[in-house]
């Protein structure tokens, strides 16, 4: 179904974050979180976004999967990981400063204008800043529909039917394409990358784009003035048997 004129393209925006298994530590001076030497990975929700795009392509409903990230030079490793999962091309907006969600959405809009995707998929949130904003903001700036927290995604030629994980249960929306979808955990389980794919990914096209060329970082408006560890939990009591456990729960009015 690929045509040279108008390939159906999916753009997946990803972010590199501290791996979800790392116990982060706050710097003693309150200036932030210690990031030196910690393991960095693709944001888990973004890995789900890549996987979903690949599955759509494998079902023949898209021709090309392009991954994009905004970040410092060494984010190329993260993009190579995405390419080894199966994406065809990568775009790297090189930025040494952290962009606020609205600024990131503006940069992604520039990429959208270049690539003309039918669908943009992102993780619902990055597990570092936990903002949960960028996808919705991109959809708004693009003046297109959004379907956040997706747990099921079906594409037709002109629409996407998306089941969303909302507090009340599972909500299904139908949105016109192009659209922005953000992923929730149940959407899929990302594939494991095989060694030959890692080798192949090394030669796939990866384009670096200076941040200034796609709108810049904008003016930061939210200043983080302090970062603290949350109040710690105290280790409680140990009980020796089930009767004592029950008595303790009963005493506290919990059973």
């Amino acid at each position: 179904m690929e045509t040279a004129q108008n390939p159906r393209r999916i753009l997946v925006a990803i972010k590199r974050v501290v791996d979800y298994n790392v116990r982060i530590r706050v710097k003693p001076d309150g200036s932030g979180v210690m990031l030196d030497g910690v393991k960095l990975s693709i944001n888990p929700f973004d890995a789900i976004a890549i996987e979903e795009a690949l599955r759509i392509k494998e079902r023949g409903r898209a021709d090309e999967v392009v991954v994009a990230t905004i970040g410092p030079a060494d984010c190329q490793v993260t993009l190579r990981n995405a390419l080894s999962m199966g994406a065809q091309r990568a775009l790297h907006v090189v930025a040494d400063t952290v962009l606020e969600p609205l600024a990131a959405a503006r940069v992604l809009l520039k990429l959208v204008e270049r690539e003309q995707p039918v669908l943009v998929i992102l993780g619902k949130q990055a597990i570092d800043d936990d903002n949960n904003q960028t996808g919705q903001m991109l959809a708004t700036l693009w003046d297109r529909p959004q379907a956040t927290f997706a747990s099921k995604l079906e594409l037709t030629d002109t629409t996407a039917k998306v089941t969303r994980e909302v507090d009340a249960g599972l909500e299904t929306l139908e949105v016109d394409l192009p659209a922005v979808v953000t992923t929730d955990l149940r959407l899929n389980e990302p594939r494991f990358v095989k060694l030959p794919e890692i080798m192949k990914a090394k030669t796939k096209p990866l384009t670096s784009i200076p941040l200034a060329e796609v709108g810049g970082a904008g003016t930061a408006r939210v200043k983080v003035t302090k970062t603290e560890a949350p109040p710690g939990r105290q280790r409680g009591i140990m009980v020796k048997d089930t009767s004592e456990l029950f008595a303790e729960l009963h005493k506290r009015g919990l059973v």
Partner: protein
Amino acid sequence: MSSVLIVAEHAGGKLNASTAKCVKAATSLAGAEIVVAVFSAPGSPVAAQAAQLAGVARVLDVAHAANEHQLAATLAPQVVEVSEPFSHVFGPSTTFGKDLMPRVAALLDAPQLSDVMSIESGTRFRRPIYAGNAITTVEVAAGTKVVATIRTASFEAVASGGAAKVETITPKAALPTHTKFVNLAAAGGDRPDLQSASKVISGGRALASSDAFKLIYGLADKIGAAVGASRAAVDAGYAPNDMQVGQTGKIIAPELYIAIGISGAIQHLTGIKDARTIVAINKDAEAPIFEVADIGIVGDLFTIVPELEKLIDASRK
């Protein structure tokens, strides 16, 4: 002086409790005028309910047939239309607010603060990052219009008993037609919703089979608890992914959390650390879960859980 617009959350003609928590958050701003906006189909009883929340000065009843279903893309231009005079625009940090508020912020070209857990002034707020493993203080310049989602677990609901004036508004903003509501399948069965339950019982890899999870369900039903699972249990196929509790699953703050056969990986502890009381049942005395548990017991879950059920039964006779 601050003025706060709160976007009400509602469904089925009922105001969601998250709205009363947003009002509570707004009362942190001394002297602020607090206005609740209800976006609903004409004839909805929700505005009248919002008018009863203590501390609310006015309610805007923004009535439009397109508001039958609360679609972010449809609501956002209407929120923007009424938000002009306000210094702060708040919504709840629920799936409703998380979906909608960034759209509002983008239209307003305003910064959004997500998951606000305390308000120190009109320009200074605290919010968690890294799933609550760090708490940041964030500031904006004076005069900046702030869009925020309010972390509902951090604020009590305000009382009712108020009698605010309700103004009906017909929105003029052009509303998009690119998004259609298809249906809503309510969350499963009689068991409480994991995200909002006051009691949660989770099983881990030590259950060793999906069949053994029945043990967890049995105890949960006995005490009216929701059921969760560790990522290890989900990965092993013992429980579905929507039951996953932890940084990459659901982050919860129940009154009682019972971790059964869960060792306590960092990403799991991240999801439960705001629970009021944590109980751990594990055969490994060295398991990290005991470091955060208020009550711990070392032993075989397959013995302890049935014993506990029997004791609960006996206490009710």
